[in-house]
C-alpha cells in the first residue's frame, strides 16, 4: 500500500512539475510549413538565423506544397514553402479566410529524369517521348522501351515517381503532359525520394523522376537522361544548365509565401529579410541553384513594399520560367 501511495504521489509531483514549467508567455515564433523540396533551403536559413537572433524560434515543417498551403490559408503558419506558384483554388481559399500573401522567389531547382546505371541504350528523351510514357492514356498499357524508340530493349518500362501531394508531381505533369496533375496512376509512387532512388537503382529497365538534389547525391547509382526539346541538342540536368536556362522544360523556380498579417510581426520581418540577404550562399550549399543577386534585391524590395498577390495569376505550376523572366516580372511590379 505504501508503495502504491508513493507511486501516486510521485505521479502527481511529476504532473505539477510538468505544468509549472508551462509558461503561457507569448514567444517570438516564426512558423513555416510546406514543400519538402524547399525545406533544406529554409532549414539552412533558419539554422543560421537562430544563431544571430537567439531569442526568435523558427519551426520548419514538411507537409508538401499543397498540404502546407492548406495550413497557410487557415492562418496556421506565417510562411509557406512552395515548389510551384500558388494555385487559383488556393488563392480563393486565402481570400475566403482574409489571408493576403507576398510571393517571393528564392531559388531554382530542376527535376531529373533518371534510369538505371546499366541502361546504356537510353541516350536522351524528348518531351514527346516522356509524354507518351507518362500521359493518362498510357494507363494500363505495358509500354516497352522498344515502343518508345526502335532498337531500345524489348522490355517493359518500370515507372517510379512522386505522389500526388507533391509539387514535383504537379510541375512534371504540367511540363510534360501539358496539364498539372494529369498523369497515369499505375506507377510506383512515393513521397520519399530515397525510395524512388532505390527503386530505379535496382531495376535495369526502370525510369523515374524527382528533384535534382537526389540525383546529384546518387550519381553512382543512377544515370540522368538528357532532355531534348525540338531541334536543340539534348541537355543534361546540371546546376550550370539550370542556371543558364538551357535545361528546359524541367527547371523550376522555388518560392516562399509570406502571410501579410504575419509580416506585421517584427520576428517574421527579420526572418524574411535574413532569408533574402543570405539565400544566395546557402541555396548553393544545400544543392540548389541560386537566383542572380539582383533577383534577391528585387524580392526584398517587393517584400518591403508589401506587394501582395501572385505574378503567375493562380496558374499553379508554370513551365519554362527562366531567371531573366522572373527578374522582368519582378520589375513590372
Amino acid at each position, binding site marked *: 500500500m505504501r508503495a502504491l501511495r508513493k507511486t501516486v504521489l510521485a505521479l502527481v509531483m511529476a504532473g505539477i512539475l*510538468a505544468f509549472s514549467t508551462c509558461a503561457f508567455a507569448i514567444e517570438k*515564433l516564426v512558423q513555416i510549413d510546406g514543400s519538402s523540396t524547399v525545406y*533544406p533551403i529554409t532549414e539552412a536559413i533558419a539554422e543560421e538565423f537562430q544563431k544571430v537572433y537567439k531569442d526568435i524560434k523558427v519551426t520548419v515543417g514538411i*507537409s508538401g506544397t499543397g498540404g502546407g498551403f492548406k495550413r497557410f490559408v487557415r492562418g496556421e503558419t506565417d510562411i509557406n514553402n512552395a515548389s510551384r506558384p500558388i494555385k487559383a483554388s488556393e488563392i480563393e481559399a486565402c481570400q475566403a479566410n482574409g489571408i493576403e500573401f507576398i510571393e517571393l522567389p528564392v531559388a531554382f531547382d530542376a527535376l531529373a529524369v533518371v534510369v538505371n546505371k546499366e541502361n546504356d541504350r537510353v541516350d536522351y528523351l524528348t518531351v514527346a517521348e516522356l509524354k507518351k510514357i507518362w500521359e493518362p492514356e498510357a494507363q494500363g498499357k505495358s509500354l516497352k522501351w522498344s515502343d518508345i524508340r526502335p532498337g531500345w530493349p524489348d522490355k517493359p518500362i518500370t515507372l517510379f515517381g512522386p505522389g500526388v501531394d507533391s509539387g514535383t508531381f504537379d510541375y512534371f505533369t504540367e511540363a510534360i503532359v501539358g496539364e498539372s496533375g494529369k498523369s497515369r496512376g499505375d506507377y510506383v509512387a512515393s513521397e520519399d525520394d530515397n525510395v524512388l532512388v532505390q527503386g530505379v537503382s535496382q531495376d535495369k529497365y526502370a525510369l523515374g523522376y524527382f528533384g535534382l538534389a537526389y540525383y546529384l547525391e546518387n550519381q553512382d547509382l543512377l544515370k540522368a537522361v538528357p532532355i531534348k526539346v525540338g531541334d536543340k541538342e539534348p541537355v543534361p540536368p546540371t546546376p550550370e544548365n539550370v542556371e543558364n536556362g538551357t535545361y528546359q522544360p524541367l527547371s523550376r523556380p522555388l518560392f516562399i509565401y509570406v502571410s501579410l498579417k504575419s509580416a506585421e510581426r517584427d520576428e517574421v520581418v527579420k526572418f524574411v529579410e535574413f532569408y533574402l540577404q543570405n539565400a544566395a550562399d546557402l541555396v548553393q550549399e544545400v544543392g540548389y541553384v541560386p537566383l542572380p543577386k539582383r533577383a534577391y534585391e528585387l524580392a526584398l524590395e517587393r517584400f518591403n513594399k508589401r506587394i501582395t498577390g501572385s505574378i503567375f495569376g493562380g496558374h499553379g505550376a508554370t513551365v519554362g520560367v527562366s531567371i531573366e523572366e522572373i527578374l522582368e516580372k519582378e520589375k513590372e511590379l
Partner: protein
Amino acid sequence: MKRGLQTDALLVGKRRREKVFLVLAASALLFSLVILFALIIDAFLDGLPRLNIKFLTSFPSRRPEEAGILPAMVGSIYVTTLTILFAVPLGIGGAIYLEVYAPKNRVSSLIETSIATLGGVPSIIYGMLGLELFARALQLGRSLLTGALTLALLVLPIIIVAARESLRAIPQSLWEAALALGATRWQALRDQVLPVAFPGILTGIILTVSRAIGEAAPLIMIGALTYVAFLPDSILSPFTTLPIQIFNWVSRPQKAFHANAAAGIIVLLAITLTLNALSIFLRSRLEKRSSSKAF
C-alpha cells in the same frame, strides 16, 4: 503382440509430430530473432561511428556531421511523460469501473467491445482525430500538449485492458475476506486489491511507454514533422521526437544523414530499453512487497 506394435507405431508417430512441431516453433522464433538482430546490427554498424556526446547535445543542422538529436530526445521524453500522466489515471480508473462497479449488461459489454476494437485502430486515425480535435477545435496548435493527448488516446485501450486483466486475476477470496470484515468496496479495492494488482497494471504501463515513444505516424499527422532547433519550454511549445527526427534524416538525399538516422535509432533503442528495465525493476520490487503483505 499385434496390438503392442500398433501402440508403438502410434507413439513413434506422435513423437515425430511433436518433434516437427518443436522445430517449426523454434524456427519461427529464430526467424524473428534473426531479422531483429540483422536490423539492430545494421543500425549499429551505420550509426555507432556517429554516436558521441556532441551528437546527443546538438541541435539539428543542414550539415550532417554537425547535426544532433537533443531536441528530439527531450521532445520524446516530454511527450512520453505527459502521455503517461494523462493515460494512466484515466486507464486505471476506467478499468476499475468496468471490472468492479459496472453492472454486467448490454451497455457495459458494448463498452468492452469498443475498447477492444479501439486497441486495433491504426495509429494514423488517432493522428487525424488529434489534429481536428486538439490542434484545431481546442486550439492547442501543434504543441506538446496536442501530441501527448493524442498519444494518450492511442494507448488508453492498452492500459485499460492490462489493468482489467490484472484486477480479474486477483483471487475472489481476497475480495470476500475484505468485504466480510465490513470494508466497503472502495476500502477493499484501495487497501487490498489494488496493491496486489499493481504489478500487473505496471506491465500495461511498460507496454504503453514503449508504444508511445516509438510512434511517429500520429505525430506526423498533427504536424510534428518539423525542424525544431530549440527545446520546448512549455506544454504549448512546438516539438519534435526521435522517430520523427529519424524519419526526417532517412528521407534526405545525403548518405551522411542516413548515418545520423542509424545513430538516432540506437538512441531510441537505448531509451526504450532503459525505460522498460526501470519499469520491470519497479514491478519486481512491488511484486515482492505486495505478495509478502497480502498473503
